[in-house]
């Protein structure tokens, strides 16, 4: 007699489905534009040379064992990650107002952050998230009963830009002390980022309403190729003396996806506050998973702290960024050559891994069913799936989809 006889079968989010269908698809022209993982020009996963070298170093190091890390993880990784995000000579670090713990990639950082806010934040627990945002944000917030999911306008689908005025109006109307989740760079799913001017306006309204800011930082370096440039928004908020969290992922920026390497940073008003918060975050960690995995952390730490590997990693990051920019160019050129209706300049102006194509749900369905091109029905494509050799096919398929899709 089962205790769980009433439990129903549930499907995973669309992105996993589509990956499964892609894998099973035998069509030779199939293209996967769904998942956010880097691919080479040959369409293959890429293990960064600096990561390979780091693994080699670790494998031959007899002094390394498998003992538990502390609850906050590998200190050398936390320290290097902090300097990466906030800057080598950050005043915030010098004043010891920044704390960091290693987390289970970006998702893990967000989860600890949300749990911490739920348990320890005395202010308003309305969490404002961009419309649209990464699907898992809403799932995570809905999962914690004490938090309320809210949205701010972000994407103007007509102009295909950030509607910063509408965004700031909504945040200005939020309750004092609400929480706001911002994508530091390379917004997922739109690929559209605020300009520096926009960031100044956003920061102003955050200060005015004393909003608690969380930065989601999954794509540091993917927007411009330069991580100092991409971290500008975070450092600007730090310079303004604001308190904020940064949920950082090393998945894409080091190709360490499945090793689950990330960090949760908190910049506090004072050093004492920051360290007290860190102590409480560690307690939260202990009842979820005790301490984080060591292998990926050691790789990431070596890549950041070893001089030669660091230089190599910076080059790898530039290469990944450059290849994605080339992919954007291939697609943009192909769309023009095929005379695909519409203005496709946004393919070039958007940043990072993803592009909001502007395709409708019906058009996406044609792409999937008829042309074996897999993308999210929101019209989001992962530029990593575009190569010089498939750009033409993708463009021509877009054309057919636009011309033949039956809109309801």
């Amino acid at each position: 007699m089962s205790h769980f006889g009433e439990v129903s079968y549930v499907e995973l989010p669309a992105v996993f489905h589509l990956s499964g269908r892609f894998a099973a698809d035998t069509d030779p022209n199939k293209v996967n534009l769904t998942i956010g993982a880097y691919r080479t020009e040959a369409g293959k996963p890429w293990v960064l040379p600096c990561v390979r070298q780091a693994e080699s170093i670790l494998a031959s190091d007899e002094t390394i064992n498998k003992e538990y890390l502390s609850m906050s993880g590998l200190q050398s990784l936390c320290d290097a990650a902090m300097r990466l995000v906030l800057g080598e000579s950050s005043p915030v670090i010098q004043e010891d107002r920044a704390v960091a713990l290693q987390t289970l990639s970006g998702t893990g950082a967000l989860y600890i952050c949300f749990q911490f806010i739920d348990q320890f934040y005395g202010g308003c627990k309305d969490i404002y998230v961009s419309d649209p945002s990464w699907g898992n944000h809403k799932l995570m917030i809905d999962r914690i009963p004490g938090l309320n999911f809210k949205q701010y306008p972000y994407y103007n689908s007509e102009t295909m830009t950030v509607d910063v005025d509408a965004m700031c109006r909504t945040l200005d109307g939020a309750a004092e002390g609400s929480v706001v989740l911002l994508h530091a760079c390379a917004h997922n799913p739109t690929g559209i980022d605020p300009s520096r001017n926009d960031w100044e306006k956003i920061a102003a309204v955050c200060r005015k309403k004393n909003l608690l800011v969380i930065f989601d930082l999954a794509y540091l370096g993917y927007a411009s190729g330069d991580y100092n440039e991409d971290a500008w928004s975070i450092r600007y908020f730090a310079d303004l003396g604001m308190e904020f969290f940064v949920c950082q992922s090393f998945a894409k920026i080091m190709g360490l996806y499945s090793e689950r390497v990330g960090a949760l940073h908190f910049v506090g008003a004072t050093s004492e506050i920051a360290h007290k918060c860190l102590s409480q975050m560690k307690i939260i960690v202990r009842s979820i998973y005790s301490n984080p995995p060591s292998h990926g952390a050691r790789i990431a730490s070596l890549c950041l702290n070893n001089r030669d590997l660091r230089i190599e990693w910076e080059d790898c990051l530039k290469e990944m960024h450059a290849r994605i920019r080339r992919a954007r160019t291939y697609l943009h050129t192909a769309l023009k050559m095929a005379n695909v209706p519409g203005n496709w300049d946004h393919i070039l102006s958007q940043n990072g891994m993803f592009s909001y194509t502007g395709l409708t749900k019906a058009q996406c369905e044609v792409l999937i069913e008829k042309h074996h091109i897999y993308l999210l029905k929101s019209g989001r494509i992962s530029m990593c799936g575009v190569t010089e050799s498939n750009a033409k096919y993708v463009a021509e398929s877009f054309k057919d989809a636009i011309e033949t899709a039956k809109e309801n």
Partner: protein
Amino acid sequence: MVDIMAKQWYQRRVRAIIGVTEAFNRDTNPNKMNVGVGAYRDDAGKPYVLPCVRSAEELLVSQNLNHEYLPTHGCPNLRQAAKVLAFGADSVAVTENLVASTQTISGTGALRIGGEFIKKFHSSETIYLPTPSWGNHTPIFRDSGLEVKSYTYYKKDTKGLDFQGMLSDISQIEEGATILLHACAHNPTGVDPSPEQWNEISQVVKSRNLLVFVDMAYQGFASGNLEKDAYAVRKFTEEGHRILLAQSFAKNMGVYGERCGAFSIVGESESEAAALESQIKIVVRPMYSSPALHAARLVGTVLNDPALYAQWLVDVKGMADRIISMREALKSGLEKEGSVHNWDHLVNQIGMFCFTGMTPEQVARLTEEFSVYLTKDGRISVAGVSSRNVEYLAHAMHTVTK
């Protein structure tokens, strides 16, 4: 604003264990001993990477694998091998695909996923833990949103199992509640039920229609024999209990910091198992999306390669045997010192931990006078005992207890 009171007791507990290690590290006494922390040490007192795991690692490096995302529920290789290890290859649970599972962030992760699952899907929100239990059980289940209660387990007078007390308490648990059982090598006491006692426990649990959640962190590590250590898991499953199971590979594979474990539920049917597994993934995804790969590759490689598996059996038995011999050496050391106390429990208890029965005052003296570091409840980690220091420990324990 903040539930400070509830957090404080736990912070003290965490500080207690971490405090032991920190104090140990600061101590300059050359004879100092750390019998606080629960990680295996070899006879030289060093951390131990199992030979089979070293070999697996060399194999993996040569394969130049990538680090692409795992599915939400982890590495299929590892999940299947974990099921077979726990339930037995010939068990109906395995042969009829009744087991829903996910790879987890070691045992802690498995317990938390289980706690969250119970909260979300089970009719009762109460879980019963043995007294005492692992210090982290209460926070894990409390933070999952469950009410934590307890049942009698350890008997101070005998330093053994209070079997009648345990059965009596279980028979009064409200129908449908969840009961947590330690499969083997109970942490922190080292006191396990015998197979006959497990059979009786199964009957009483059944009579109350309780949901059984088994924590198995020491399979193979307790007796050196995988089947023997999994007796409770297999017996309960045979008896029709649809158990929840948290498995850790931290100790028995020595992969501690790599974080490898599994959470399973035995379903009524293959389709129920599929439904359960789909729901487990929904629980996992908002927490950390998917688990860590490296640990799964290591453990999966060892479990699935016949030669490495055979090596593992030798490695894990080696650890278990060393611990058993240290228990015997400690007991005979105390007898040699002339202790008049009964130290049978040192060898009757099993696994890494031993509830010595020493009082907090005696523990304090052990630390202050002999630089022997352990937790106030008198628990020692036998893994921290070696042929080099067992006589010193016997002498110290005798001195404070005579």
